[in-house]
């Protein structure tokens, strides 16, 4: 992937030409200022083509969705924790869906479905890689903007469109989709099976189609920018690990999201055009349906062919950012840079080869199942390499516990905890017992949900000064961290025990079961902690918006003493990022503690006396 110095220089020139044509002259500081006066509110804050502004748009939209999705989980946890109680204010909020202050089962499932959809796609995909791929790729590879700022802007606005449709679906009379975020047909294909399978489901599918367009426009841009627009000297092996992670994230998305799109379109056909892709031999509400020959399982293959890579689409950016933040704050090079890149690459390849481990109990051919067991457990090898490399990075470091660093350490802890339970679920024999129980809920919330959230928080705290030229308040950040990590473990650790008792997930009420009704006390405890943790997230939101306007101002361009290029820009970089020439890169991103120097930024030329690093 190395194009050689000549080619690199040419590309760099091309890219600056492109930006010149696009946004006016950026070559000098003065010219930039001149241009600045022409920017209107609309072009600067709404239809912006500046990757930094688009990143902020993704982040703020993601935060809004996270509040909605989080609130939904608190509401359905009320039902699980206090199945006997009534909450009159729920009726004020949700009307007939919570008549008498008690959620209807149908609405409970709608909340569960929306919580999953919102958090997986809108928060941890768009909110996470949308924000940080946009923000960090041009800044860290040394480019003035994305390869195509226009497509980049469209990427956000397609996401906005998808958000609007999904948000609207919350208000339709029959309610939003309620078949789970995995929308398995026939439950999602036939309106007779549940009220959430009516118009709400169509809106879900259309929204997701828009979302996929957004994701593809973004992903193609990220890949192109990383491959073609690196600054002089920035060879692929000098890229910060954040960029490698975001690169593989984009590759995963570009190759797997179209498959979900095909699944969504076929499902729309089955719903509205009378086709039988996923339907066969069905009697519903006393009606014998004519559909024959379709396969409900086919949809699951299409879904999980995206669905599993999706897990890594969510996780890899968090891994990349944590790697970077741990190295910076340990004041040490990341241990085993090449192994880190190699293991992300291995994870990205394997991510495509394990989807059927979600389908061990669908009647899948046992031999096929065994192949997926082998490939699934293989992922533990690169994951283990990453964990041990993070641990070794901390070893003999000089660690600064900034809020970002704490969240990165928390990420590693959660990744270990949730990753190890993946070894249970990936082993098909154990999955027979654990499938669709609370063990699964605990597993994926820890490893994908909370861990990736921690990666996102780490990223926000770490790059907030670069985004807004101000710091977030440390005291609130520390409280946020400690409440969140303690709360996350209190919520999800005991759930493993519920799963080992066979307690199924997605149940509205367990009181009718002799096998699962012994966890009432625990469910109440979990719901209580969930409320506290949710409140702590509001503290983060407050800190975020307050600090954006009133936070302590940055006085240094490089507050963390970091090596990467984004910290060579001015405190508040304009569109084009560097007022003068784009800096040239002379070394990898992790020359910390090398030759007695605390840190040596990438743009510092290699001295004659310097030892050979990697």
């Amino acid at each position, binding site marked *: 992937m190395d194009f050689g110095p000549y080619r690199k220089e040419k590309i760099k020139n091309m890219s600056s030409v492109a930006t010149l044509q696009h946004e006016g002259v950026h070559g000098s500081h003065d010219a930039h200022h001149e241009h600045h006066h022409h920017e209107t509110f609309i072009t600067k804050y709404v239809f912006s083509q500046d990757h930094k502004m688009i990143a902020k748009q993704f982040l703020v939209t993601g935060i809004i969705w996270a509040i909605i999705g989080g609130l939904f989980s608190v509401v359905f946890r009320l039902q699980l924790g206090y199945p006997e109680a009534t909450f009159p204010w729920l009726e004020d909020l949700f009307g007939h869906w919570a008549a008498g202050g008690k959620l209807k089962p149908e609405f409970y499932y709608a909340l569960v479905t929306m919580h999953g959809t919102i958090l997986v796609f809108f928060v941890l995909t768009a909110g996470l890689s949308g924000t940080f791929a946009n923000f960090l790729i041009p800044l860290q590879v040394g480019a003035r903007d994305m390869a195509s700022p226009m497509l980049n802007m469209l990427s956000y606005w397609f996401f906005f469109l998808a958000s609007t449709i999904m948000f609207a679906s919350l208000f339709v009379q029959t309610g939003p989709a309620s078949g789970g975020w995995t929308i398995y047909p026939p439950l999602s294909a036939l309106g007779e099976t549940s009220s959430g399978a009516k118009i709400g489901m169509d809106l879900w599918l259309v929204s997701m189609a828009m979302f996929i367009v957004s994701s593809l426009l973004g992903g193609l841009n990220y890949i192109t920018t990383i491959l073609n627009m690196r600054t002089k000297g920035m060879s692929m092996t000098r890229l910060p690990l954040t960029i490698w992670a975001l690169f593989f994230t984009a590759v995963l998305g570009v190759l797997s999201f179209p498959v979900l799109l095909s699944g969504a379109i076929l499902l729309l056909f089955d719903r509205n055009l009378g086709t039988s892709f996923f339907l066969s031999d069905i009697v519903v509400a006393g009606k014998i349906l004519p559909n024959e020959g379709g396969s409900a399982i086919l949809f699951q293959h299409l879904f999980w062919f995206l669905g599993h890579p999706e897990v890594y689409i969510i996780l890899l950016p968090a891994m990349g950012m944590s790697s970077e933040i741990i190295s910076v704050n340990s004041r040490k090079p990341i241990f085993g840079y090449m*192994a880190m890149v190699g293991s992300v690459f291995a994870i990205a390849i394997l991510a495509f080869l394990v989807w059927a481990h979600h389908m061990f109990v669908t009647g899948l051919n*046992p031999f096929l199942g065994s192949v997926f067991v082998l490939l699934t457990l293989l992922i533990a090898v690169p994951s283990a390499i990453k964990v041990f490399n993070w641990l070794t990075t901390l070893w003999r470091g000089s660690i600064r516990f900034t809020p970002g660093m704490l969240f990165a350490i928390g990420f590693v802890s959660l990744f270990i905890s949730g990753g190890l339970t993946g070894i249970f679920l990936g082993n098909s024999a154990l999955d027979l017992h654990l499938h669709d129980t609370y063990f699964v809920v605990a597993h994926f919330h820890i490893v994908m949900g909370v861990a990736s959230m921690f990666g996102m928080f780490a990223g926000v705290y770490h790059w907030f000064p670069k985004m807004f030229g101000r710091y977030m308040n*440390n005291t609130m950040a520390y409280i946020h961290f400690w409440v969140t990590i303690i709360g996350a473990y209190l919520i999800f650790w005991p759930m493993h025990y519920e799963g080992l008792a066979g307690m199924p997930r997605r149940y509205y009420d367990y009181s009718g079961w002799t096998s699962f009704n012994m966890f009432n006390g625990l469910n109440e405890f979990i719901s209580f902690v969930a409320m506290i943790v949710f409140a702590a997230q509001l503290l983060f939101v407050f800190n975020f918006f307050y600090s954006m306007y009133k936070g302590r101002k940055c006085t240094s361009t490089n507050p963390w003493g970091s090596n990467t290029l984004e910290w060579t820009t001015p405190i508040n970089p304009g569109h084009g990022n560097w007022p003068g020439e784009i800096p040239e890169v002379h070394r990898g991103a992790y020359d910390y503690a090398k030759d007695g120097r605390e840190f040596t930024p990438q743009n510092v030329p290699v001295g004659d006396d310097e030892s050979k690093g990697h």
Partner: protein
Amino acid sequence: MIALGALIFVVVFQIAKASEYVSILKGEDKTRKQNNKINAFFLLGFLVFGLIGAWYCNELYYGKTLFPQGSASIEGEAIDTMMIVTIVLTGIIFVITQVLLFWFSFKYQEKDNKKAFYFAHSTKLELVWTTIPAIVLAVLVVFGLKAWFKITGDAPKDSIVVEVTGHQFAWEFRYPGADKVLGKKNYKLTTAKNNLGVDFNDPASHDDIHVNTTMHIPVGVPVKMVIHSQDVIHDVGLPHFRLKMDAVPGIPTTQWFTPKITTADMKKKTNNPDFTYEIACDQLCGSSHYAMRGVIIVETMEEYKKWLAEQVSEYSTLYPKTATTDSTKLVTQVLPEKK
């Protein structure tokens, strides 16, 4: 409640603001170092209390899992063994890595007299932690797949066959009767009375028994379930037997197991007079998914045979006249539902 929350919020905000001013007065570097020490100490405390908490959680809830009572099926024993092996192996890795993570964080916190050690990579170390997990996983894969192939292999020839059908939101069962063959079905024959769509033109269907919700099986004999769904995907979840299999419309699936403890014995063993083997639907299937409950009664062979003898075939219930005159004769003419 909300007022209290708001109050806490305001207090936290005021403290946060104040501490920021104090830090500016004291000097940012000094505050940073102080925060560093506090957080490093908290991380160590989190490790200690976290491990104690994990132990305490186990004390509280281990008894409520299904392991103390053991697997109720012979096949499930392999799964329990696998589970214990996996818990031990991952438990060891969990403790080692978490201890290292938090201990390193505490030990290598920034100190004035210490500098970070430049250590960018070591092929030897990286090979070690590539190889060891690979070996551990190979062991788990081999043992896991051994159990998997046994459980998912063909059911023994002498298995009792029970057809399980799921629909929103109940389970129904069909036994093949004396001829040991289940009559054919065609979903297009479904009516309010013949709600499973049995083809009564097939003589094999005439002695088939149809029961709702509760399934009787004898102890110690393999049972093969042939699983259908009529509408959406359901799942026959059998936590006590450690098994699970989806019910998919249009694609019948199978699952077999050998129950080894009767319901009556399990009541004694668990000291719980209410103990019931329950079939839990484990695939979200609509608004009453949480109430899609079936029951399995495991009994002795004598009890099972007695129960079976008391059952009346579905055919003779639906067509009492034809059934009593000649139950083996084709009945095309008298089937009003037949189209």
